[in-house]
């Protein structure tokens, strides 16, 4: 449990040399040691998904990984999405579609969607797979409808026209 270990974490293509206890969770090290507080902790037992980050391109719950497990791996967090002064398309879409209210779960949903859809954009075309993906994470404010619309807006074949066709409107 005790004893501190030096680790080099590569987060958003920046190296962070940190010395951490082996028991420290990736989420805590990102937030406390790397100062990347965009990743949120909602349940600390792997259910809510608010702490989702990408490790080697895969969405993982950073409350279920130790930081020392991530040495030498490619970590991406919400802070690394916007590039060249522009928001990522899904960051833009989740706002436009009112897919957030308090915003606490947002980084987790954003990383979940970006990780999965960048790998396989066809998920947006399959309602069942899309619901399956989005049901990995919890949101208590929005009722999810706006989050789903945001995926369709950012990744769907019909892009911006999706909103008018969404259920309930």
């Amino acid at each position, binding site marked *: 449990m005790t004893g501190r270990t030096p680790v080099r974490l590569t987060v958003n293509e920046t190296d962070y040399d940190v010395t951490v*206890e082996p*028991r*420290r969770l990736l989420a*805590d090290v990102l*937030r406390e040691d790397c*100062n*990347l*507080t*965009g*990743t*949120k*902790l*909602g*349940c*600390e*037992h792997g*259910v*809510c998904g*608010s702490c989702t980050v990408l490790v080697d391109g895969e969405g993982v719950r950073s409350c279920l990984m130790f930081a020392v497990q991530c040495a030498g791996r490619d970590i991406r*967090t*919400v*802070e690394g*999405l*916007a590039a060249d*002064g*522009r*928001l990522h398309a899904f*960051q*833009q879409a*989740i*706002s*436009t*579609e*009112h897919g*957030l*209210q*308090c*915003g*606490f*779960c*947002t980084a987790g949903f*954003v990383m979940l969607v970006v990780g999965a859809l960048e790998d396989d954009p066809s998920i947006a075309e399959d309602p069942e797979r899309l*619901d*399956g993906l*989005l*049901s990995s*994470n*919890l*949101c*208590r*404010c*929005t*009722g*999810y*409808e*706006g*989050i*789903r619309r945001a995926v369709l807006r950012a990744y769907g074949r019909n892009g911006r026209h999706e909103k008018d066709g969404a*259920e*309930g409107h």
Partner: protein
Amino acid sequence: MSGFPPTRAPVQPPVSPPPTITHVPQGAQSWLLGRREDARLVTGAGRYVGDLKVAGCLDAAFVRSRVAHGRLLAVDTGAAAEIDGVVGVWSAADMGDELPVVPSSTPGSADEERQRPALAVDRVRYVGEPVAVIVGIDRYVAEDGADAVRVDIDPLPVLVDPGQAAASSTWLFDGVDNVADEMEFGEPIDHEVWQRAAVVVEGAYRQPRLAPTPMEPRAILAVPELDGRVTVWVSHQAPHRLQKDLATALQLDVERIRVRVPDSGGAFGSKSGTFPEYLSVVRLALRLGRPVRWIEDRAETLSGATHGRGQNQRVRIAADEDGRMLALALEVDADVGGYPIAGFVAAETGLAAAGPYLTPKVHARVRTVVTNTTPTAPYRGAGRPEQVYAVERTVDLLARRLGMDPAELRRRNFIPPEAFPYEAPTGRRYDSGQYALALDKALELVDYGYWREEQRRRRRSDTVRALGIGLCSFAERSGLEQAPMAHEWASLDVTPDGRVVARVGTCSTGQSHETVFPELVAHTLGIPAQCVSLIEGDTDEVVQGIGTFGSRSMQAGGSALHQAALELIEVAKRRAVRMGCAEPDVGYADGTVSAGERSWTLGDLATASPEPLRVEGVYDNAAAFPFGTYVAVVEVDPELGNVRVLRLVAIDDCGVAVDPEIVEDQTIGAIVQGIGQALYEEMPYDNQGTPQADGLLGYLLPTIGELPPLTLDTTVTPNPNTALGAKGAGEAGCIGTPPAIVNAVIDALGQSVAGTDIGGVQLPLTPETCWRAAAGQEVGAR
């Protein structure tokens, strides 16, 4: 401050800057975004309490009772204090005379004679009650300390049901009855009314305990400042009340405490209280002279914070042969848990008993009863979902007894539009309503005739899943009736460059105030929205405030800003007159005062005098009564007990919706919480008072997979008491949804489920509950 001088000089620099839009990419212009808040929130640049960095900050962790009821014999903190990195460990005994006590809500109330200390003194009353607090150099170390504390408790008999607790000879508070309060609303109904009525129905219902579950649990950071003040960063709905309570509990001058609410990860009513943990954290920050924070974890909050709902209810309705309701009696045993901190929630259930109906005799009797469970407190709806559920299920029972269509029965009993303002027999004055209009719109949108026909078709066939249609009509209270809670403070300042800074005493925990309030002020003043900014949630910046709860933000805070903006126009005109404008007709449009050939922008007028161009006031906003009708269509699989919601139509009337998109956001969110309440959510206790869920695998929240097709629409009946016309929005969804779904399931399962009226299906409608009901088994008992 009476004692506890700082033991060392504060070591930290002043607290980190307030949450501002920083590190936001240039491309994130707010006009491209859905809301102003979003630029920071979608990029990870938001600042929640846990994100604030303060040098030298310590973390607190709490040791909590694992025994529901017992004598606290000893708390051994020795081993914890030895742990490297633990700065201190305190039990109630270690705090001594400095142990804070949660201030009572009102003098003479139930919580004054049943005091709640910050740490348990000689008795524990629920699993999760704080027994000791550890402060360490980080949260890991503090939690190590918590694990090392040994607590010796001599168990006492455990009471988990309010009915049982009310009758028990075991008392939670020595010398004080378990019934904390008894309230009556309306006149008792004469026996003859029941005896002479053509029909009388009676239902008994259980409102399970719900965990409010904002995605961010409770969070607080107390920072002693160099000038002797303390800044309290906290995720909270009512910063001014918290400031006052902290001052009372810690015996500090109110001016020494600055409460600031940064970004907040949701509340739903559960962050309006003055929690014992908060008193300990602020006390210890002052004692140590160092910043101390406490970031609650999920397992902890599920039993250590507060629960919502938790009532045993009995409803009786008498009607004539045409279905006209003659009398309604409601009895409630409200389970307020280990400390009666929020009896006003159950009082609302009683006060609201009449619902939207013109019943001439209405009587409610409400008892609040302490039990060995987590204290109950407001959760979205706070007393209204409980009332609406009890009455709407019983109205359906009456329809079945009379063989009458439940929509027609409701229509026959509504308070008609011309009867407003309407004085309900419980002593409440409803402002305005068009209840039949909302019902008719709901029936039309769901295509009621089609689904009734489809139901008949399915009933003729054995091979298809049973289909049911359920209604819920409600009138709910938004804002509050009593002064000073019916007031809200607001101010507007014009800066020399013509921008307007709005301040208001409400406090967003995710309700988009930063977007909507500036839009409202800008619209009223006729200036671009980007010229208006908002400051909320800071007791230094906002002189006074009531906060955000009871759907009051737009109705009270928005209306206050609206009135302030109208006043600002008059103040600007008067200033133009003082500047020598001799014209008789001074006009105002689009941010400019004009008279004849001359004109002044707001900025011109602000710079023209050293006296600030500003307005400030406390504005009175009476309670309002939003209403609506929800209809659910469900099918039930009798073999598996699964409920599938095929349609959910929600017609809401919250008066004038200032920003319909934001109102819709609130409505959908509340509906999904209502779906959770109807089908999944419950915090059960075993008979030893142990909560049966300590995580989100045990306490089930709806995911997107549980989302039915939703159809939302509105009617608009303006609030007659404000110029803005807005009633409250934000809670109706979880008020209308559960009864609609439950009535639909009962409609699907048929007459058998109604049984003897008493002991029918109870929330939540899990597959097991529905399977048992479909199989004709006893479903009321647990």
